[in-house]
């Protein structure tokens, strides 16, 4: 056995976190990207800046504020406590919230680009062909923007895989509960267990490369098919 039990747990935890985050981001990011692509609201740039913030902000800064918000005295954590739950800091749920914020731009931007590229016309055509708004979205926008959805999903997933700073700040480093791959690697290096760090790092490298390759390959194929 190359990987030890604790590494396998961290790996599974990471995959679970990335998958859940991707699903949530697709659900949240789709209406958000749609609105950003369509709206003519004059203060739209405010929301654009907020969505893009995680791109430039040091993850530790983001993590720090999330830690405060999710903790027992924070806005979200306090609300959770008030509703009879427990604060989210140092829990898996807290990691999911952090990852969703952290990876948001990687899902919203490709979706927004794909929606904008479709333009207004196909939707108008669908409207004159009796399709109500939601029907138009699923029968025209989703199939036409499908490479955009794929790019968004893969980027969101891959970006969450590599998350370190935010997770460390709000998740701590509790094996079996909040320890993810990138932090496990850090621990191994700290403990001078280079062999174990190699296995995990190499695995992450290959996985990320394969995912990105998939995105670019599919995007190329679609660019050829769609005039």
């Amino acid at each position, binding site marked *: 056995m190359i990987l030890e039990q604790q590494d396998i747990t961290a790996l599974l935890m990471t995959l679970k976190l990335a998958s859940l985050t991707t699903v949530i981001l697709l659900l949240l990011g789709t209406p958000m990207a749609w609105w950003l692509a369509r709206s003519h609201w004059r203060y739209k740039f405010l929301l654009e800046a907020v969505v893009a913030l995680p791109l430039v902000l040091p993850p530790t800064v983001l993590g720090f504020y999330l830690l405060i918000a999710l903790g027992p005295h924070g806005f979200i954590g306090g609300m959770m406590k008030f509703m009879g739950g427990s604060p989210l800091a140092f829990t898996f749920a807290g990691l999911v919230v952090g990852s969703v914020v952290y990876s948001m731009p990687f899902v919203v931007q490709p979706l927004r680009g794909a929606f904008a590229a479709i333009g207004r016309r196909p939707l108008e*055509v669908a*409207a004159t062909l*009796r399709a109500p708004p939601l029907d138009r979205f699923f029968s025209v926008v989703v199939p*036409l923007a499908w490479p955009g959805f794929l790019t968004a999903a893969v980027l969101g997933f891959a970006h969450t895989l590599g998350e370190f700073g935010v997770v460390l700040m709000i998740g701590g480093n509790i094996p079996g509960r909040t320890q993810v791959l990138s932090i496990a690697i850090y621990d191994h290096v700290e403990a001078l267990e280079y062999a174990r760090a190699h296995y995990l790092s190499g695995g992450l490298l290959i996985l990320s490369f394969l995912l990105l390759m998939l995105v670019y390959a599919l995007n190329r194929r679609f660019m050829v098919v769609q005039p």
Partner: protein
Amino acid sequence: MSIAARFKICRGTFSLDVDMEIPGRGVTAVFGPSGCGKTTLLRAIAGLEPGIRGTLTVGGKTWQDSKSFLLPHKRPVGYVFQEPSLFGHLTVKQNIEYGRRRVPRTERRISVDRAVSLLGIGHLLGRRPHQLSGGEQQRVAIARALAVSPALLLLDEPLAALDMDKKKEIMPYLESLHRQLAMPVLYVSHSRDEVARLGDHMVLMDAGKILAAGPVREIFSRIDLALAHGPDAETIIEATVGGHDPEFALTYLDCPAGRFTVAGNKMPTGNTVRIQIAANDVSILLSRQSGTSILNIFPARVDRIAPATKALTTVRLMVGEMPLLARITRKSAVDLGLEPGKQVYAQIKAAGTL
């Protein structure tokens, strides 16, 4: 059934202010220069311009007024855009079925097969839009609009994006739609020739306003409108094929004003055709000429002479009850002493059928 529309909007330099009533049958051509608001008018009728206030009733049903606005997907229109705008992710057949599937079963009057055969696209059904030529794509788009069995068909310059050959390819299909389907059609165009061929009625627009509306034949020969003045002024006459002269390969066309003789003998007797007579090809004589090569000469009465300052002027003649435009030099008009009411002969050098 008739269509009454009143729209008013002002957006910066663009304004649209129309109040029109058009017949619920036949093809009504909306004609005017680019940017005059024709397309906006059509989009407003389809409900694609929710910002435009106004009232619209079609066949007694209110689609829009100050209190209500029927959303575009609830308006029973078929819309053909200037560019074919087919769905790239669907085959030709799926494109045609897209709208039809969303129409309640009881309201489906035109089958996919009929739409397909009217446009002659049976051999293309399995293909994807990007595998079609521009003309084929536009035919598919027209079939797709027909397949929703619209109460009103809206065509927004469906030929404008196509070159001359493609136009010639589609024109016969549009003409057959006109003959075979009873539904009213609103046809936006800036091409005089398309209007002459396809229009029954027309709405003449400029700078967001309606200048004139009525039967195409009438509007084309109205001397108070700019249409009757340029070098392309023409008269459109509806006629029926009355017979042939097999020896000289000629066709006789009968209209209220008399019998025209045109070259060729392919048209079946009894068919309705449109005769197009360029005002430049009509000359005026004071007495009946003999020894001329021209076959079509009719007694006529001068109705009106356009006031002109240039070398050429347009004279509106009446051949019986039928107006006929002649474009002659102002000098000739003076030399012949033309004035309203004067009896003359109109000599038509060339008469073509559309």
